[in-house]
């Protein structure tokens, strides 16, 4: 593994509250060095160096294969809904499952080469988001067998994977010192799995609204008869919310703990953290109204959509907000 010194991130200063007075330098980038729980067990801040990493390029090849397979899957899922022929859907499913396998492999290889959570660059984050969204779809499909859900999820997955491909920058290969910490293995997977579940909530809500509009207006055009029953859409949204909300809650708590142990305070000041809290409050309200006042259907769907837009803003905007959650490449 290659190691290069000297590339500290400007961000670091913004996040290390209090001067990084304890010099704790990693001498030559072995895996154990930067994944060691330095700093958070004893609550002592430490300044680490950014690490550059090995990059075989294999992961990007796999990701491009996955992208190609996703595009086949997307095409066939649209054809399924347009033609109502389920033979198309079989091909679609085969393509996305194969694509997901390549995608997962790409992420594992990337993680192995980085020897770190593959989430620090824009490329990695988008790829990871796409993979968990696809995972969410596959789980929902196994449980509900809703074919039309694919029409709402596959474009999102395709787009995220596509952005990952475009954003890939082989020269950007350092991991900022500020986030070299084992907490990342708890904090980010929780948040991303939460996102995956909430993207299903979002898709379920959109399907609900389309279906509800069709039934109320008695105007049965478009994809009305290719969508699942209203109660199924509502159930799908609710259940995925019931999975997604605890995940992002734990994700936020773990982030707060990380910040507390590392920097002595729960909240950072970057915009993403603020937005995440806002997002969390929307979903909290949704859970509250669903449980306490028995909201369901249309109003719940609107709120779920608002919540997911907030998720997207905080995710997509992360790169531009600056701060700890911005990407390194």
């Amino acid at each position, binding site marked *: 593994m290659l190691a290069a010194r000297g590339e500290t991130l400007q961000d670091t200063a913004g996040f290390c509250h209090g001067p990084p007075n304890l010099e704790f330098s990693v001498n030559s980038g072995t895996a154990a060095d930067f994944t060691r729980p330095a700093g958070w067990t004893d609550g002592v801040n430490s300044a680490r160096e950014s690490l550059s990493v090995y990059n075989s390029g294999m992961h990007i090849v796999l990701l491009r294969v996955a992208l190609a397979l996703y595009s086949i899957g997307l095409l066939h899922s649209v054809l399924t809904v347009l033609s*109502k*022929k389920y033979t198309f859907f079989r091909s679609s499913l085969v393509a996305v499952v194969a694509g997901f396998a390549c995608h997962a492999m790409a992420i594992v290889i990337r993680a192995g080469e980085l020897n770190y959570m593959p989430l620090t660059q824009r490329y990695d984050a988008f790829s990871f988001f796409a993979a968990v969204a696809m995972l969410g779809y596959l789980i929902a499909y196994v449980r509900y067998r809703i074919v039309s859900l694919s029409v709402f999820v596959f474009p999102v997955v395709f787009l995220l994977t596509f952005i990952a491909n475009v954003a890939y920058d082989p020269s950007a290969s350092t991991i900022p010192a500020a986030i070299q910490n084992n907490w990342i293995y708890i904090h980010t997977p929780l948040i991303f799995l939460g996102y995956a579940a909430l993207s299903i909530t979002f898709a379920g809500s959109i399907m609900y609204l389309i*279906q509800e509009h069709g*039934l*109320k207006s*008695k105007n*049965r055009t478009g994809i009305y*008869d290719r969508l*699942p*029953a*209203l*109660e*199924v859409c509502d159930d799908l949204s609710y259940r995925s919310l019931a999975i997604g909300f605890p995940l992002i809650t734990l994700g936020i708590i773990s982030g707060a703990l990380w910040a507390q142990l590392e920097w002595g305070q729960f909240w950072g000041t970057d915009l993403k953290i603020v937005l995440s809290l806002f997002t969390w409050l929307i979903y909290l309200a949704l859970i509250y109204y669903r449980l306490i*006042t*028995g*909201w*369901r*259907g*249309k*109003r719940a769907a609107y709120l779920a959509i608002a919540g997911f837009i907030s998720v997207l803003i905080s995710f997509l905007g992360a790169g531009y907000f600056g701060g700890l959650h911005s990407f390194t490449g």
Partner: protein
Amino acid sequence: MQLTLVGLSHKTAPVEIRERLAFGDGDLDQALKSLTSRNGVSGGMILSTCNRVEVLAEAPDEESIREFLCSYHRVPTENVTNYMYAFRNNDVIRHVFRVAASLDSMVVGEPQILGQIKEAYRLAQDAGTTGMHIGPVMNRAFVVAKKIRTETAIARSAVSVSYAAVELARKIFGSLEGKNVMVIGASKMGRLAAKHLKRNGVSSVLITNRTFERAVEMARVFEGAAIPFEQLGDHIDRADIVISSTGAPNLVITKPQVERIIRRRRNRPVFFIDIAVPRDIDPAVNDIDNVFLYDIDDLQQVVDENLKDRMTAAARAEEIVDNEVEAFCSRMQSREVAPTIVAMQAALEKLRRDEIERYRNDLGPLSDGQQEAFHRMTQSMIRKILHSPISKLKELARHPDGQEQVELIRKIFNVQGK
């Protein structure tokens, strides 16, 4: 192939004629035997439903079949001939495929006809009258019918008002299992909708009517519970689906009432079906979240649209039938010329051996190599002689009017077809 079909259906004959020519289930065995005992008829099958009577037979002409139908029912031929249709060979196959796929039904796409044909075929099998060709035709017809059912939307949506109600309930609730229905009023339409819902899995039916006795009587039929009309308000919360069809001149269910209901149900959806004229339920109810109201016109509109869809699907189904008929006929026919080809080859081969035998002694002593060459030469001559007739035969087999020319080739080579 000598297939003939003679029949009459709702499209060609009024019920007074159809009923006179219909066969009872018990008579079919006897009728089939009587049919196949006729001169020139080597196989037969009879389909008799309330909408059609058809006789499919392996017979050279339709006249004998028409005669059979009339004499069996003791009806003068001239009285009914005008109501009948007759098909021969390829047209028989097309007709059978269309009927099995429910393209010729009164309600296109209705599913019963296929079962009725299967039953008629089974009866013919039991009677041992299916002959040579009826089996393959019917088996293919069943495959084609299934293919059309799965590949087109011909039978996908509801085409009656009461079934449209079920379809909509499914769109709202998904599974109807565990759902409760309340029927207000005891009209025929209300009963029908309740019956369909019950058959599709709703778990309980509550019935209320101004005349309590009628509610009780209906409750017995649906294994439901009767509720006095005055207590309607106490029980309506429980209902996921409400069918109203009273003869009341004014509204039975108002918007404030439904708002209360939906609050008490904690927003669980309710599907109101108002099939009364004048209407029983305030149309403004549809504006409330999680409440869906369909009146008789809305349901009729659903039915009309579904019928339109069905017509589109039927056009697509006709294309499938066309392709299938063509494929099936050419398969049948090339199967028919196969024995002719084999017979021609065998006849010439025999000729070759006989002639070699005859002239063997005149040839004098031959080495093994020479003998071998001699055989090869004669075999090659036969192959070359037969090449053109065989390829012509195969070509003619696919042609609808090729039958006569096939016959001519058989005569020239002096071989039998079978």
